[in-house]
């Protein structure tokens, strides 16, 4: 792709200042996203994937969390330079987000119609009240809510889990944003409902030509919905690339181990490959490469120096000494 990216993140660092010390939740993350493209950010809990996304909409919990350095360019503008009022206008109009748990994201005391219309009310161009109701019904219809004319008067508890998540999707796409962030949108849903929702998400993305950032710990979801993937480990992106390349020929030992550790539907039963140890404590990171204590291929050098990010085939990047020394 040669067009300018809609979103580009350069060396983003988000730290949390706690009594126990500085937690480097996101520590030098860079990626870019083009119009209509979907990027999956995958990793285990605590690897910084959610904080990366909260940084993109500048909703990192303050004052503990601070975006320490880096740039987030949306259509060429660095959103870290915007004031709160300008940022508020960006949210929903240019960039919007679907969160993990639909029940806690919806206010139980207001009707669905009321809450969805809020998304339109922030829009300066929106029309009269009557017009508003029409818009709400239209957007609910677009996410396959049956009988939206009647359901707008219902409260969140009257909706099933899958429908609540679709309502949130409706709120997120209400004003045709250019970038949609979905943070583990299907973790609270059953497999068949997850399947429905992911297919709806793909369809919406194609229809509205949105760029999609999909945060998930489930690599299967990445394979199903994304064009490119970034694998995160302990606050850093260790590997990026097209989904087909990363899944078939993972370059980083962590990615490789993750793939091997997954039980697969279409494979003969055998003992699973296991990654020894546990993800590092972000307060007390190992020196050098963060994965080396668990890595089977670690070398002397990995212990002292963080490997440089080097480009590999199909526009991918990887941060590993193995690849830079040409052994891969």
């Amino acid at each position, binding site marked *: 792709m040669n067009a300018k990216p809609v979103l580009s993140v350069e060396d983003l660092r988000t730290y949390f200042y706690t009594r126990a010390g500085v937690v480097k939740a996101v520590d030098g993350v860079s990626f870019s996203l083009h119009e209509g493209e979907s990027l999956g950010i995958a990793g285990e809990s605590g690897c910084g994937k959610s904080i990366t996304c909260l940084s993109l909409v500048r909703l990192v919990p303050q004052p503990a969390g601070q975006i320490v350095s880096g740039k987030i360019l949306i259509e060429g503008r660095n959103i870290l330079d915007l004031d709160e009022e300008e940022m508020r206008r960006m949210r929903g109009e240019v960039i919007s987000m679907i969160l993990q748990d639909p029940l806690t994201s919806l206010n139980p005391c207001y009707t669905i119609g009321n809450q969805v219309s809020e998304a339109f009310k922030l829009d300066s161009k929106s029309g009269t009240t009557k017009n508003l109701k029409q818009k709400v019904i239209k957007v609910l219809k677009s996410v396959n809510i049956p009988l939206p004319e009647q359901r707008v008067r219902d409260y969140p508890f009257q909706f099933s889990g899958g429908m609540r998540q679709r309502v949130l999707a409706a709120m997120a796409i209400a004003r045709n944003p250019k970038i949609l962030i979905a943070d583990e949108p299907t973790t609270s849903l059953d497999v068949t409902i997850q399947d429905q929702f992911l297919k709806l998400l793909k369809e919406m993305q194609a229809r509205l030509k949105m760029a999609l950032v999909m945060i998930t710990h489930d690599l299967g979801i990445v394979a*199903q919905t994304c064009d490119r993937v970034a694998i995160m480990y302990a606050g850093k992106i260790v590997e990026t690339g097209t989904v087909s390349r990363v899944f078939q020929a993972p370059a980083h030992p962590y990615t490789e181990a993750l793939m091997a550790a997954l039980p697969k539907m279409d494979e003969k039963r055998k003992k699973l490959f296991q990654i020894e140890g546990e993800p590092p404590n972000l307060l007390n990171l190992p020196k050098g490469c963060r994965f080396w204590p668990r890595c089977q291929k670690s070398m002397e050098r990995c212990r002292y120096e963080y490997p440089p990010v080097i480009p590999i085939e199909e526009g991918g990047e990887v941060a590993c000494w193995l690849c830079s020394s040409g052994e891969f």
Partner: protein
Amino acid sequence: MSALLELHDVYKFFPIVLSGVIKRKMAMLKAVDGISFSIEKGACFGLAGESGSGKTTISKMILLLEKNTRGQILFEGKDLSKFNAKEIMWYRTRVQTIFQDAASSLNPRIRICDIIREPLEVQLGKSLSKTEINNRMEEMSRLVGLPFDKLENYPHELSGGQQQRVAIARAIILHPSLVILDEPVSALDVSIRAQILNLLIDIQEKQGLTYLIIAHDLAMLKHVTTQIGVMYLGNIVELGDTDSVFSTPVHPYTRALFDAVPHYIPERVETTPALKGEIGDPINPPSGCKFHPRCEYAIDICNTEAPTLMQSGAGHLVSCHRADNMLDIHSNNKMEVSYGEENDSRTQQNN
């Protein structure tokens, strides 16, 4: 081989108050609606299904935490409902459980060593000396790979994987014959999940345990189980050897469930349409076959008559009026993906 646990036509209804205080209107929530299966000694039986399908209610009935409305549950040939207090104590040494969320199943105010020791003290405290109990406790922590320096800690000081190891140690310290695992790894990260699954398989082989695993993660079930039952709204729709069910799923629901699982190989991503609708209402389930409103192959009879579990051409039990047709439909479509392999080393070992 003899059956360790047998369920014969088990029902569980929960009464629900619909409205009114004096003149109450009641309804029955049919959580488990006529289920029979048996688990052989040394087997690893999996129950799959979406939330609300009744899998956890079954485990609660087996653990004597709920009483079945109708039907019989037999453990080593003895009827659970006829147990007296003494037999219940004995039964609880034979059957143990591991819950989904280790963090909330461990008492936050008790040290790890005491948590692991507790079942022994409760059950055999009179016949074992303190040192014997301590030895058993240490042996268990070695078996589950828990570092000794963590034994004096409290649960919150452990990571998720270690907490799950504690839960496993606590469950197996009495050397039970049946262990019920309710979503044992769904709360864990991918890299930890493989460790725990391998550990569970390892322990099963070492101690000769029988597992009943309840999970919604089909890929995991395929890896671990030898038999599997697929549940939908309180019924088992397909039951048989894991390999047979995964290689030739017959019931339309099983097939839809398998298709809904995301594949890890991008080229394999299929474009089968998503299953429409949502799981039915257990208070007022659909007539006939409970799956028929969501089934694309439904015919008139599915609307009126409930199918029963019957032997299908695929070599396992299926509850579908069109089981034979379904087999033809699948072979005509030349099913693109096969979900299993014919031979399987673990079943052979267990036999």
